């Protein structure tokens, strides 16, 4: 069996002492920072990017993946204990998780979230291992026209799944594309929109953009809205769910895993849908739907599993096609590029230890989350009591050091401050910044493939409609866009995203 020999290679990489340690450290700091309210996975990863600089690429990616899961899990912890979702996908967990906490069952909610996530993580790891090879093979058949259309479809997905106005999401993607074009044009060597300023010739640094628009702008927003932290006063209680709880959660966990895993593969942030879909599904399946919203354990078990499964399968488009499906994966691309790896189908053949090592480390990371988080819950609760007036100066110190270290350039730090203002303006104008980041990351790839496709077709734009795979992808994109604009669907979409 091919899968098993590959996984064996992966585990032999991931189980070295150094990589185990990195996975552990990643999960731990990821959770630590993810637990702090107001700091989501995107800000966490940007902030911690520089600590991976001294590592080899495998170690660095294992550490970053650990931080990602940790931050996700930390987000669920705050959702349950404080009623503040650390990120979009944990919104659903607040509904029943926080209610459980209020009834003195916080421990059980955390426990079932961890167990469900672990199960989902195991299944998702297998899905990735099984799908990696065929999808990579498919990717190698793709020409520039197909790649371009695939990315268009991914961006359309991102638009449809973004919160708020569709028009504004489209605008954000376009702004991201425009920003990606600043710098030297690779084909002609012309400097584009650099105003003759030398540091801009290499383009806008990804870490600078992400940190300014996400990290710092988030700080500015939090400063304006004095938080009402509703930390649960009741005891956390026992962590291990009873047999009865487990029996009640088994089916939701399984359904959530499959649903989240399938949605996570979609390009364009399908993972966001997982928890919502799972919650709706469980409510439909429940004998007594009125229990939902009042501390039903299924309402935590299902969405949490879906969340974790989706978080992991969203690595698939990145690892096999080289296309990041969401902002976090876009950050992973940035991290890979810093370490000299170009994400895409060639990673698996050229760098099998990295590829399979990372997949194996996903499973190990999930196990570690289960092992380290449950005993440390007490510490996380204490961490929740750190006031924001102390937290944000610390975040700023860390971030400044982080941005400076990327290129050892003070100018980068100044740019980040400028982007912070831009990000703040986005918030005030009701723009969601996540699509911008995705557009920025895909921009260069899209332009390259568009040009190549047009060179091959001798300038005939119809090539995108004449090649069947490309036409199919574009049709899906078009259908999605039309459906999303239909009034009925828009209404339910707004309901799903209403917090």
């Amino acid at each position: 069996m091919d899968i098993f020999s590959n996984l064996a290679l992966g585990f032999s990489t991931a189980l070295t002492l150094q990589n185990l340690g990195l996975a552990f450290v990643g999960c731990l700091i990821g959770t630590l920072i993810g637990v702090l309210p107001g700091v989501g996975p995107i800000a966490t990863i940007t902030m911690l990017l520089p600590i991976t600089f001294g590592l080899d690429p495998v170690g660095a990616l294992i550490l970053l993946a650990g931080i990602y899961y940790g931050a996700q899990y930390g987000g669920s912890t705050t959702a349950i204990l404080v009623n503040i979702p650390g990120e979009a996908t944990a919104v659903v967990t607040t509904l029943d998780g926080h209610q459980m906490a209020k009834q003195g069952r916080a421990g059980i909610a955390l426990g079932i979230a961890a167990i469900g996530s672990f199960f989902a993580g195991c299944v998702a790891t297998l899905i990735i291992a099984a799908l990696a090879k065929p999808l990579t093979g498919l990717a190698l058949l793709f020409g520039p026209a197909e790649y371009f259309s695939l990315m268009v479809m991914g961006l359309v997905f991102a638009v449809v799944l973004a919160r708020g106005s569709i028009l504004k999401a489209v605008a954000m993607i376009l702004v991201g594309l425009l920003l990606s074009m600043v710098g030297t044009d690779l084909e002609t060597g012309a400097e584009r929109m650099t105003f003759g300023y030398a540091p801009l010739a290499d383009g806008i640094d990804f870490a600078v953009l992400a940190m300014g628009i996400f990290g710092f702008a988030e700080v500015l927003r939090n400063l304006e809205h004095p938080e009402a932290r509703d930390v649960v006063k009741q005891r956390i209680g026992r962590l291990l769910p009873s047999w009865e709880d487990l029996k009640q959660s088994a089916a939701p966990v399984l359904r959530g895993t499959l649903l989240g895993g399938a949605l996570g593969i979609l390009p364009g942030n399908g993972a966001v849908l997982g928890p919502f879909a799972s919650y709706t599904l469980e409510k439909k399946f429940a004998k007594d739907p009125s229990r939902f919203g009042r501390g039903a354990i299924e309402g935590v078990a299902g969405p949490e599993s879906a969340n974790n499964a989706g978080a992991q399968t969203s690595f698939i488009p990145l690892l096999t096609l080289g296309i990041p499906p969401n902002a976090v994966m876009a950050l992973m691309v940035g991290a890979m590029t810093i370490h000299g790896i170009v994400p895409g189908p060639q990673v698996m053949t050229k760098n099998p230890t990295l590829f399979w090592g990372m997949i194996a480390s996903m499973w190990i990371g999930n196990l570690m989350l289960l092992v380290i988080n449950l005993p440390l819950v007490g510490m996380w609760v204490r961490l929740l009591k750190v006031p924001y007036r102390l937290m944000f100066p610390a975040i700023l110190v860390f971030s400044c050091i982080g941005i400076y270290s990327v290129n050892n350039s003070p100018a980068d730090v100044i740019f980040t401050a400028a982007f912070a203002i831009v990000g703040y303006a986005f918030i005030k104008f009701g723009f969601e910044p996540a699509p911008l980041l995705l557009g920025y990351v895909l921009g260069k790839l899209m332009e390259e493939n568009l040009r190549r496709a047009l060179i091959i077709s001798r300038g005939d734009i119809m090539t995108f409609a004449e090649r069947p795979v490309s036409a199919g992808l574009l049709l899906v994109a078009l259908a999605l866009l039309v459906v999303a604009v239909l009034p009925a669907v828009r209404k339910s979409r707004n309901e799903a995203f209403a917090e």
Partner: protein
Amino acid sequence: MSEHPTGPTARSDEGSHAIRSPQNFAAGLSLVALMVFALWAGRDLDQGTLRAMGAGMLPRAIAVLIGLCGAALVAVSFVKDGDPLERWHLRGPFFVCLGILAFAFTIRSVGLAVAGPLVAIVSGVASPETRLRELLAFALVVTAFCIGLFRYVLNLPLPVLIIPPGVLPGLPAGLYL
């Protein structure tokens, strides 16, 4: 295109004005401004043909699309009710950015031992809840931790403390840590 067609955030007196969604109106205008700026910034770039695209074709096309989105947002803001413009607070952004700039200008010349506390303390003023003594102590602890972590554990080339020659009488040769 607004999320709250009849939402509670839409001010009731807004209905009598011509602009029914000030937020979308301002957002749209800023997109149009961005288009103008991008077209101006890329005015010298070669357009090329579809067969051999020049450096300017795609940026220009995207700028125009951004402008169209902006125009649509402006148009929608006259037709549909939406969110009012939120107030811009100056204190937060001003002090946070000032702190970041202070870091940028001191990290190379004086080092992290000064730049770290500086960004923490200056940006700390951004929050009305800040207590000065607590912040001072905290800034020093965080900086010490960062120096240990980034300079000594991770070995990043961060200057910790630089004293130029001749500034301190006791240190004629200066100091570079």
